[in-house]
Structures are given as C-alpha cells and as structure tokens.
C-alpha cells in the first residue's frame, strides 16, 4: 500500500527527523508502529536513505594542509590590518582611551598654537637635510599614484619624507622600522610599502637587506614572513643574493610550513640565483614539494637551468 493518508502526511517531517536520529523516544516508537503497517512511509524512508547514498555525509570539500595554510596566511594579514595582536578594545577601555585621546588632542593643540603657526609647516614637510638615524617612525605609506614612499616621524616637530624606494634615506628609515621590535605595526607597514613599490634601478642598501634577513630569522608570524620575502624580491630585484641570505632561503624552501612562503621563496631564488650545485639540489628537492604549484615552478626552473647551462657545467 503506497498511497499517502492524512496520518502519513503528519509523519513526513518525523520521518526526516527519524532518518537523522533527531526524534524523541516516544515519537520514534509511534512512528515505527505506524511504519510497520504503512508501505508509503517505509518507501519514503527508503527515499531518504537513497538520498544519503547519493550525497555522502562528508564536507563538500577536502582541504589539505597547504590550502588551509594559504587561507590562514591571508586571514593573518587581514587581522594584522585590524591591529591584531593588540588587545581587542572593551567598552570600558574604549571610554578610557577616548578620554585620553581628547586630553592628548587638547594638549597638542595648545602646544602647536603656542609654538608654531600654520605657515611654519607644522603638519609635515619634506627636507633633504633632516637626519633620519634614530627617528621614531609613526607612519609609512606607499602612494600608488606617485610611486613614492611616505614616511612620517617625530623630530622637534612632525616630519614627513616623500621619496622613491631608491632614496638612501627611505631605505635607512625602512631598515629602522624593520628593526623596531617594539612596534610590529611599523614593521608591517614598512614591509607593505616595499611590497607595493616598483623595482629599484640601483643596488639596495646592504643594511636594508640585512634588516629583512633579520626579520626572516626572528619573526614568528607567517603573514609577516611572507611579506618580508615579497619585500626582498622587490628590493633585491635580479641581483645575486648575499650568501648567508641565500643559504637561509634555501633552508626555508624545504622547511617553511606555509606553502605561500615556500612559493614566494622559490620565486625569489629563481629570479636572483646564479647556477650552483646547491641550487640545483634545492630545486630537485622542491620537485617533491606537497604543493603542486611549487612542484610545477621547480620543474620549470630546472628545465630553464638545464637548457641554458648543461648539468656538467653547474658547479
């Protein structure tokens, strides 16, 4: 008997709950008693079981570690933009901060009014003679329209320097921002500015390259390490890498947990590397990387290397 009675209609929602083991004990017994004598409801339950055979009870997607790490890296960068890892503001704390902010604004306004006029250029100015060593950097931005890096810091008055990435003062200030352990926001902004800039025509300041290498050796945050490798790529261009940095990057190519970082490292090494047996071995190892993009790039780099330089000539 397969026709649907009014009683069957009432049981239809219960059948779904029964199928998913969400029915209470009494309702379950009631439904089982009904199904014992109702072919239509038994057939309906069988339909639900067929559905289960068609749509497995599994997530719609499998996420391997490399995919998950890529998403985690992106999420970390978004959180850093939000001020992470500073303490999330609580309502009470916000009020206290607001009071301090108002007090600070009044104090600054009083100081400025007493000491400077607007014509004196209190807000910001650009001078080639301002010393930059020891500057307490407050902000770093990259202006995509002009291609200039804009860095602000405190001297006897606020100073803003706008210049391109090849400017020695910009590179010195960026080095200082990178080395400022107490100000991760400043470090991140420096990395962001470098990552967005265009390739300099001149060789980078070795102090800046050292500072970037130091970040790679000490920074635990994967998002910042990824930005650091990107910045190195921009700063160093196609120039040969200093030997200690090259060694560090080769180790990172095999040991970095994040595939996004490994891939960026591989691209940096490919663009700057002179042929060497060690580099060839690193590429061979990268051919077995868990991430298919890295494997593909390593294959391609090896093919390019072997076509331009016979293997027996690689030293």
């Amino acid at each position, binding site marked *: 008997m397969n026709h649907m009675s009014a009683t069957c209609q009432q049981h239809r929602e219960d059948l779904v709950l029964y199928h998913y083991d969400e029915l209470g004990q009494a309702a379950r017994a009631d439904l089982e008693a009904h199904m014992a004598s109702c072919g239509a409801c*038994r057939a309906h339950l069988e339909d639900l079981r067929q559905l289960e055979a068609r*749509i497995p009870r599994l*997530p719609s997607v499998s996420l*391997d570690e490399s995919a998950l790490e890529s998403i985690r890296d992106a999420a970390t960068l978004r959180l850093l933009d939000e001020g992470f890892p500073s303490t999330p503001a609580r309502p009470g704390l916000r009020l206290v901060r607001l009071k301090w902010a108002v007090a600070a604004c009044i104090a600054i306004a009083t100081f400025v009014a007493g000491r400077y006029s607007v014509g004196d250029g209190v807000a910001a100015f650009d001078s080639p003679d301002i010393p930059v060593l020891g500057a307490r950097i407050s902000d770093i931005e990259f202006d995509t329209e002009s291609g200039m890096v804009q860095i602000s810091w405190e001297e006897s008055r606020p100073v803003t320097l706008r210049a391109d990435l090849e400017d020695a003062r910009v590179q010195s200030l960026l080095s200082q921002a990178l080395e400022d352990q107490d100000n991760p926001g400043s470090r991140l902004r420096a990395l962001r500015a470098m990552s967005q800039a265009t390739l300099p025509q001149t060789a980078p300041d070795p102090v800046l390259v050292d500072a970037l290498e130091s970040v790679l050796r000490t920074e635990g945050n994967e998002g910042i390490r990824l930005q650091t490798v990107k910045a190195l790529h921009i700063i160093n261009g196609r120039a040969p890498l200093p030997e200690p940095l090259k060694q560090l990057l080769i180790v990172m190519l095999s040991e970095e947990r994040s595939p996004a970082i490994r891939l960026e490292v591989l691209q940096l090494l490919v663009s700057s590397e002179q042929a060497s047996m060690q580099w060839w071995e690193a590429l061979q190892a990268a051919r077995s990387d868990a991430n298919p993009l890295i494997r593909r790039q390593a294959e391609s780099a090896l093919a390019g290397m072997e076509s331009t330089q016979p293997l027996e000539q690689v030293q």
Partner: protein
Amino acid sequence: MNHRENELIQAAQGGDSRAFNELVRLNDRRILQVAHGILGNMQDASDAYQEGLIRAYRNLHTFRRDAAFGTWLTRIVINQALNLKKKRRWKQRFPLDDTGQEASLQVLDPASGPEEILVSSELSAEIRAGLDLLSDRERTVFVLKHMHGYRLREIAVMIECAEGTVKNYLFRATQKLRDALGHHASASGERTTSSS
C-alpha cells in the same frame, strides 16, 4: 566547553593573541568547509571566513561562553557567508559549463601568485545543481546537518532561529533534493524501488 578552551578564551579576552590564534586553529578547517558548503566555492568561503574572523576578533569581549567558541565563530562566519551569497548570487556568477562538468581540481585565480588555493571538489555537478535549488537557509541547514552532522539544537544556535524552524528547513531541503535527484535517477534508470 572543556577546561583548556575555557583557559584559552579567558586569555584571548585578556588580549593574548596566541590564545585567540589557537582557538581559531582548532576550528578553522571545519568552519571553512561549512562556508564552502553554503557558498559553493573556496574563494568566497575564504572571504566569508576572513570577514567572520575579523568580526569575532572585534567582538571577542561580547562572547559570554554560553556556547562553545567554535559554535560562536561558526555562527559569525555563517552570517558572513549568507550576506556574501546575497550579494553575489553564485548561481549567476559561477554557472556550470555546457556539459555540467567541473574539473575535480579547481585552481582559483591562477594569476594571483602564492595565495592560490587548491581544493578538491567532492560533489558532482548534479548534486551541486540540486543544492542550488535550495534557499540559502535550507542549504545552510542541510550542509550543517547532513554533511557535518550537527545536532538540530546546535544549528538553531548557529543560524539564530528556533529549533522548530530548523526542522522545517531540513524537511523542505530533503524534499527538494529528493525530488530533484530522485527524478534524475528514475529518468536514467539508476534508481531501484523498495517496498521494505
């Protein structure tokens, strides 16, 4: 909520970013999979997840521990996923191709460099088309119940509605899928009838 999670929540609410990270890492794979089930592609799922994470971080002080942290975070990401879906209507944006097939290995935004995401699709085009017939809420409930095995009372917390409403969504979702997939199976002669 176990003791360790309690400790982590307390530390995270006190400003310990590592504790927040650890809480997130305990849940992120599953939450991303839920978002993927709702949105149908990993790029949007990742966007919804990131937006949700930022909201969770901003509102961590409002978390009162009346549910597990994972449930709370899932609820936030689901809200983001549903909002995103309203905006994008993935059915229009990602139509199936003429053959109804999609490569099992999707490379998303291949020009974007190291942030590329490789995921394996576990669903056939036919099932994805069936899921596409469901309303956003029906699909969300079906994904949470059928694919992830949450209890109805947990789902009610996650989508912020009564348990009875969740039952109703689940009922409607299974009816629609049964009609869509059952009809297809009958037409292709795959289905076997049973009277038991």
